[in-house]
């Protein structure tokens, strides 16, 4: 019955010592959508991400992947199912080369990841595929650089390539354009659009311009609950959403003023 949803939550709740960060959220992510999760700061977006991928234990509720509960699985098992997440802060392996970053993601299905007696050159057979992935995000000429030397925007592109190497069915991107200059934002937006072909994406995003350009479904979260759902136009016209955003912006103005 819920097969059309790749990912679904039912009454998902997370409490931290009496504070309810995520409050009985019912989220449904449809196959093939680029689904945005937006909301003011502290709305529980990242917490929700952490629950979906079990980086945090859930207090109540259920998470379904293609109709089957994954609430009791480990993070690594969920990743192996094809639900692969990225992180708010660029998640790369800083002292490995760009190529090695992608290769680590390709390596696991080879089944030799515990083979401590084999030489690492057996991994070279993955180089071609790794290069193809790097090419798809425009990083092929940086393949041999140590990752820490890359500028921020390229690190995020690398992160995307690494995530794609997992061949995920659904990608959870946590603020993929955060902290980027305008030029980088456009490039990453394009990359996400390309990556979305044949996949489902759920992304937390603050940049509403990116959301309006990219996403065909938007869920608005405020204080841990869903306050609106729909396409960008209908959601942005919703008075509750306006209030949540204006309220928080007014607060921020007060903070900067004081």
């Amino acid at each position: 019955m819920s097969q059309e949803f790749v990912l679904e939550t039912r009454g998902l709740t997370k409490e931290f010592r009496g504070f309810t960060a995520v409050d009985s959220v019912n989220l449904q992510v449809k196959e093939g959508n680029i689904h945005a999760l937006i909301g003011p700061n502290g709305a529980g977006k990242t917490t929700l991400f952490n629950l979906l991928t079990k980086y945090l234990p859930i207090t109540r509720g259920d998470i379904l992947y293609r109709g089957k509960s994954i609430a009791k699985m480990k993070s690594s098992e969920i990743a192996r199912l094809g639900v692969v997440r990225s992180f708010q802060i660029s998640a790369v392996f800083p002292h490995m080369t760009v190529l090695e970053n992608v290769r680590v993601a390709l390596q696991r299905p080879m089944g030799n990841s515990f083979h401590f007696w084999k030489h690492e050159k057996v991994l070279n057979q993955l180089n071609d595929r790794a290069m193809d992935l790097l090419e798809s995000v425009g990083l092929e000429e940086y393949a041999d650089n140590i990752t820490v030397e890359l500028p921020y925007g390229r690190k995020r592109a690398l992160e995307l390539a690494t995530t794609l190497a997992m061949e995920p069915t659904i990608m959870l991107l946590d603020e993929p354009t955060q902290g980027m200059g305008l030029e980088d934002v456009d490039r990453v937006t394009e990359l996400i659009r390309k990556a979305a072909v044949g996949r489902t994406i759920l992304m937390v995003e603050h940049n509403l311009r990116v959301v309006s350009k990219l996403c065909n479904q938007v869920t608005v979260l405020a204080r841990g609950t869903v306050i609106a759902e729909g396409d960008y136009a209908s959601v942005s016209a919703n008075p509750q959403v306006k209030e949540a955003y204006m309220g928080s912006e007014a607060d921020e103005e007060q903070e900067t003023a004081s």
Partner: protein
Amino acid sequence: MAMTETTKARVSAVQESKKAANRRRIMIYLALLAVALIAPFLAYPVFLMKILCFALFACAFNLVLGYTGLLSFGHAAFLATGGYFTGYLLSQHAVTPEVGILVGTLAAIILGTFFGLLSIRRQGIYFAMITLALAQLVFFFYLQADFTGGEDGMQGVPRGYLFGFIDLENNLSMYYFVLAVFLIGFMLIQRTIHSPFGQVLKAIRENEPRATSLGYNVDAYKLVAFVISAGLAGLAGSTKTVVFQLASLNDAHWHMSGEVILMTLVGGVGTLVGPIVGATFVLTLTHQLAQSALGDWVNVILGVVFVACVMAFRAGIVGELQKFAKKNFK
């Protein structure tokens, strides 16, 4: 597609330069090996064997601290376990030394698995505390147990005949056997680091949550690394018992867990030869000081060295040299 060709050419160019670096590394290893082969004619073999045993112990420890990012404060337990099991077998059951050493190593592997299963899910200081607590438990067990000789330790363990015919009472044969054991251990570590498994370990050390999100069950990888390290620490302890014909509570004491941290940090944590240099440095310093007028001040001086290392030379001797080489000879 022209792009693909050039990038592939670039990749192979990098592999060429990697090969050149590899050749240099092999030259250095061969030079070190040559030194190790003639060393017993220049220095007191028993002291050299002591260095080799502790160097192996420190290398094993470095596999968890430097290459997995786990601070174990209980590695003395593995050293002592190897030592006691080997000592017991050699003195009570008259097995040949290689069998005694293998069983000692196996015992350390089993103990390491047990330690690892209990502690690996904890991080940072909690991991250190659990390993310390478990090692203390093992210490008191060996203190009370009958077969260890308690506070007196196990004295007069016979070295015996290796494979039944090589007399290890001869210091020179003993030395070359210890050198062989050390090399096997060292090569295993070097291979582990440069293996598919080593790549995953590196990824885990660099960014653990990300490694998890790539589908790796990080605890399992850490556990394997920990068990390999425990096994090699046991191998070092077993071999040490054969050399000194003695297994004592000193090896199980938490001082020993601290000393191996000191050796690793002074030499250079996360570098392959750092622990060897560190063990040599610490043991030579202790040895020289013990014979000099400053004999009573050994621990104070080691403490000062440790503080200086942590505050000023955080990369250790080898680490600082590598930094220097990178800066000046690139």
